[in-house]
């Protein structure tokens, strides 16, 4: 059952804190044009189906893919929408994968688009309303409005990441400098990426540490921005990929596992995640995706990784949870330069989420960048040949992790 899926192209729109020159359909059209430009032998008629997603609360439009039909070229074609909050992009990419892998007759080439135009709405209200229903339960259970106000105003912006940071920092025994080092590396990488948001070619650790705290231990200089932007990926079968692309990228493993809710819990019942940096969901995701892709030793077999780290402690944490480094050794790897452009295992050479965060699109930009690195068409291309790469996504208080493992060789046999 099933069949091999290849990714043949990925495209982006320009990201900025306010793309005041376009509305949403025009924004995704930019990304789609960039994606199709890279494979000139594919025309719009060759695309059989579409997958689309974003977080609708930020723009004030419900099910916007209905409006965007014509700008995607989807009139009278199959289209499906998936959204899962912060991991929306990863989920849309996975939906694009499954649409081709299913082998439904006539569906061979799928265009997946994920986007966000956060400047159109109120980001903090959109994020706060995730927990709005649960907060009102806490109020009924007796917690006063003053407390709840504090919870929402302080917790919503950073949410669970601050708790993850405290436990991780105490486990790994690191200082804020280690966090700032990650930020500096990522934002300097972003300066070489044409579509990234925060391009800071001359950033230093002192600059980052000179900013005030948002919520200990995270400072303003470490927090990801809120960007407008879109991303598109093109998936197709193995035969067509060989015809259309120079280097087809084989999608060998996908998974998106959720754990329990962190911090707040549902119905006001708290969370079983005592140590938020344990991340059972991420470990299970990695287990599933690696076993599908035939990877048993990720540290040696993976050449490039794009991790979803809106805050620097998360990039460090994911690199351990996904098996790239041993527990608590990640900060030393960054210090030693293992993860920079010329290192053994480059991570986030596009700047990662810390430099560009259009919430709906950012989890798709990770596998898109990982695919482009294998194709050799990435904006900040690593000098060594990339054979296997991973793109990862993470979502809010649910700790849903999406993972897509890609390589330049197929790894599975299909019956």
């Amino acid at each position: 059952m099933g069949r091999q899926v290849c990714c043949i192209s990925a495209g982006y729109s320009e990201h900025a804190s306010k793309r005041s020159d376009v509305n949403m359909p025009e924004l995704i059209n930019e990304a789609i044009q960039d994606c199709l430009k890279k494979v000139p032998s594919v025309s719009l008629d060759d695309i059989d189906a579409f997958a689309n997603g974003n977080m609708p609360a930020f723009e004030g439009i419900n099910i916007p893919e209905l409006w965007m039909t014509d700008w995607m070229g989807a009139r009278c074609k199959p289209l499906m929408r998936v959204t899962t909050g912060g991991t929306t992009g990863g989920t849309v990419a996975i939906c694009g994968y499954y649409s081709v892998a299913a082998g439904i007759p006539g569906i061979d080439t799928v265009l997946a688009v994920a986007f966000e135009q956060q400047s159109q709405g109120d980001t903090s209200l959109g994020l706060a309303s995730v927990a709005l229903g649960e907060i009102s339960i806490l109020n009924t259970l007796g917690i006063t409005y003053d407390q709840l106000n504090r919870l929402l105003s302080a917790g919503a912006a950073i949410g669970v990441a601050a708790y993850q940071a405290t436990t991780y920092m105490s486990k790994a025994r690191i200082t804020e400098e280690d966090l700032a080092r990650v930020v500096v590396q990522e934002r300097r990488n972003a300066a070489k990426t044409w579509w990234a948001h925060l391009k800071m070619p001359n950033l230093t650790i002192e600059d980052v540490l000179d900013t005030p705290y948002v919520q200990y231990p995270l400072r303003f200089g470490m927090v990801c921005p809120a960007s407008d932007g879109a991303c598109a990926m093109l998936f197709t079968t193995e035969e067509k990929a060989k015809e259309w692309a120079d280097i087809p990228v084989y999608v060998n493993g996908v998974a998106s596992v959720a754990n329990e809710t962190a911090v707040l819990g549902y119905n006001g019942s708290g969370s079983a995640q005592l140590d938020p940096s344990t991340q059972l969901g991420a470990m299970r995701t990695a287990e599933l995706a690696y076993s599908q892709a035939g990877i048993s030793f990720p540290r040696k077999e993976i050449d490039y990784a794009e991790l979803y780290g809106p805050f620097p402690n998360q990039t460090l944490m994911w690199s351990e949870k996904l098996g790239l480094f041993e527990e608590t050794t990640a900060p030393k790897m960054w210090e030693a330069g293992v993860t920079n452009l010329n290192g053994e295992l480059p991570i986030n050479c596009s700047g990662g989420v810390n430099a560009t965060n259009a919430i709906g699109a950012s989890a798709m930009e990770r596998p898109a960048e990982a695919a482009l690195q294998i194709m050799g068409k990435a904006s900040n291309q690593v000098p060594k040949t990339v054979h296997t790469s991973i793109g990862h996504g993470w979502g809010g208080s649910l700790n849903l992790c999406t993972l897509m493992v890609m390589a330049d060789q197929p790894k599975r046999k299909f019956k």
Partner: protein
Amino acid sequence: MSEKKTYQRTEKKALEYIKKEYIKTRTLPGAWYLSSYTYKFDITHMQPFLKKLKDKKLIGNRCSGCNRIFFPPRLVCGQCLVKPDRWVDIRETANVATYAIAYLKNPDTGEIEEKPMVLVQHDGSNTCCIAQMAPNVNVKDMYINMPLKVHWKDERTGGLMDIEYYDVIEDASKDLSSKKE
């Protein structure tokens, strides 16, 4: 080596970056009417727990499938997909599972205050919940696994605020090197 935190505050917030100017297209106002929603929920499963709070007793519920104990009580155990069916007693002592420090403007004085936000795990339970610390706690002294005890409110009404805050108690393991760095 984890250095003790220094909490200086500077005025500079934003870091400089390379920006591109975009032309402004037309804009129109709009709104999402969140205020027109009502949220329905059921807290029948919490009633025994809330009643016991009045008598200064803590109880949690336990899932027979995985033997995990939930405090506060939970509707459904996700791991087993069943409703927890037994009530167990929970002790008043707890420890800090994790914490963060928020910087909020005091609406009366206009000054920025440091407020610790903690997740506490009671001894005997497998879950943690959000809680308040005693007002006299110095945030610089907080660490993971710091032992705490419940401080009850004098007038209890059967709600979550009956646990007014958590006091810091003496750390029995302070002579052991595994306590904290």
